[in-house]
């Protein structure tokens, strides 16, 4: 158990995890009700990873979260308003209606880099940020995420190799959620643990329980500390399970139900809340209040986002190029 987390940090984490889950659930519900636009992703089950890793970063550090990392965007300060407005293609969304769902949620004022679909393109981009910090001798680190599926991609390996040989302050959290879309991990690779891919490049590697937010937080914080000391990149394999389909349209019938119920027991959000109740940091009442706050916040965001205007097509050709 982490020594670096004080009570208020622990409560903060509980808030971010619950907010993440509440917003995620709300998005799923809206889309099922036909109130969505296009497709969208759920990160249900990934909250300990996205929140834990994001929470371990300093304000000056750069993050490049992916499609299961709603929690990381939130922790880093992207408001539910702007996220939801983006998903609904609204003018006030992060991309002004130009990119879909969680794609492209970049905001340099928050040190968040947006992603493209082509996986794992955020890995070298985060590495480049890390190399920029080295170049300028700044004590900053860059964090990004990759799936089990992405860990097969050549770019995953090229990035780890380059990070290692440059000794760059990069942290890669692999969200091993057992599936890449419909493809189970044993049809994707012939290894048991993705962490062995760190050793292939001379990168420090570690496995953590991806449903334990403190385990993730601690591992990422330690990796960041090492990186700031000039000890180079780290890969953290966080084992978890994707609890819904690949995207909203996907019922994931190909996933054995037993696997899901097994992992449901380890739900990262309720697990953390129960722990804080056990530790006495939350009471059933304060927990209920926290959950209600999250609901209110998400409801307000939905109201805002649904009312927000769509973008005006007149501006469609501006901004292809930076001035």
């Amino acid at each position, binding site marked *: 158990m982490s020594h670096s987390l004080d009570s208020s940090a622990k409560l903060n984490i509980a808030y971010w995890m619950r907010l993440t889950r509440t917003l995620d659930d709300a998005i799923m519900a809206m889309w099922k009700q036909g109130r969505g636009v296009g497709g969208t992703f759920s990160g249900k089950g990934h909250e300990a990873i996205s929140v834990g890793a994001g929470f371990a970063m300093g304000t000056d550090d750069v993050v490049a979260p992916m499609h299961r990392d709603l929690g990381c965007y939130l922790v880093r300060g992207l408001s539910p308003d702007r996220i939801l407005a983006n998903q609904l293609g609204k003018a006030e969304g992060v991309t002004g209606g130009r990119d879909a769902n969680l794609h492209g949620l970049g905001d340099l004022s928050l040190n968040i880099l947006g992603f493209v679909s*082509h996986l794992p393109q955020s890995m070298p981009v985060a590495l480049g940020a890390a190399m920029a910090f080295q170049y300028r001798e700044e004590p900053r680190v860059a964090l990004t995420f990759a799936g089990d599926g992405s860990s097969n991609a050549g770019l995953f390996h090229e990035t780890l190799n380059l990070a290692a040989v440059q000794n760059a302050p990069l942290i890669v959290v692999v969200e091993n959620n057992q599936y890449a879309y*419909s493809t189970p991990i044993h049809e994707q690779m012939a290894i048991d643990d993705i962490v062995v891919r760190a050793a292939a490049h001379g990168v420090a590697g570690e496995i953590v329980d991806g449903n334990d937010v403190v385990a993730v937080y601690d591992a990422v914080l330690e990796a960041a500390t090492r990186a700031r000391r000039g000890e180079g990149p780290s890969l953290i394999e966080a084992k978890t399970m994707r609890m819904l389909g690949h995207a909203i349209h996907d019922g994931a019938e190909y996933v054995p139900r037993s696997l899901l119920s097994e992992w449901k027991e380890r739900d990262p959000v309720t697990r953390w809340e129960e722990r804080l109740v056990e530790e006495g940091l939350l009471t059933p009442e304060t927990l209920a209040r926290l959950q209600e706050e999250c609901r209110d916040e998400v409801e307000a965001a939905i109201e805002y986002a649904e009312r927000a205007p769509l973008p005006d097509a007149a501006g*469609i050709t501006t901004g292809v190029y930076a001035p």
Partner: protein
Amino acid sequence: MTDVRELTYLDAIAEALLVEMGRDPDVLVMGNDVGGSFGGAFKVTKRVSDEFGPHRVKNMPMTELAFVGAANGMALMGLRPVIEVQFADFISTAFDSIVQYAATTHYRWGGSVPWVIRAPSDGGIRSGPFHSQNPEAWFVHTPGLKVVAPATPADAKGLLLAAIRDNNPVVYFEAKPLYRSLRGPVPEGDEATPIGVARIAREGSDITIITYGSTVHDSLRAAHEVGNEGISVEVIDLRSLKPMDTDTVLESVAKTGRALVVHAANRMAGVGAEIAAIIAEKAFADLDAPVRRLGGLDIPIPFSPPLEDAYRVSPGDIAAQLRELVSW
């Protein structure tokens, strides 16, 4: 014998796969999520997966460069892999295996690389900049590839049969907005649509539209609309982009004296530029008006409905151009 039974565009593709895998044991399917009970992001390979199983319908890890590269090797050994890239947008990930290895091998040392890449392309369905692309121009510019883009269920089947039988790498762009929205007659059996032969989708005498893929239908709508105003529009569905049936195009323009090129891909240096340039050169003496082009805007494809709609060529845009060109 219902020769005129109707199928969706998607089912026509699925039927071609079934027919050809039944006919030829060397044909196999590979790609992300194509196999098992799942059968592909769009379920195009569901029927062949159910029927032929994992030996012939192979799930691949998310490594397009390697699995298209592996298809190169399989094809050199005489197999005929039909590869699905999950969205046409991801074909860029496999670029080297296509444009450097597959495209050049026969010319260099005589190795034949008979694969097909099925690339679900095109937008209009709110999928954003990375699930809506029409990247055919990159491949039409690359010597050694063939490129086809069916617009109808009949050609979806017929061109896929032809592509699989062709002894060269063929990139087959299927228009995903047509998957379930378009239904049409599809011949039973295994007759292929020859690669390199355009189709006159509508006859007319005042102006020729040259197009392919989903904009064939937008063009037909526009032709119908201006037809009511007395403008007679010929619509050519190119079907094959490389090789391209320029004879049919030039004959039509010789007749009409006017040409409008339409495609869903963005305009600058798109395939439409090649078509317009050919017409401008070879039909110079026939032209009564400039050759115009309509395509997507030269911007990444935006997601939000008002933006995506403004991005895309519409029947209204086409009709407006037709009116202008005819009164040139």
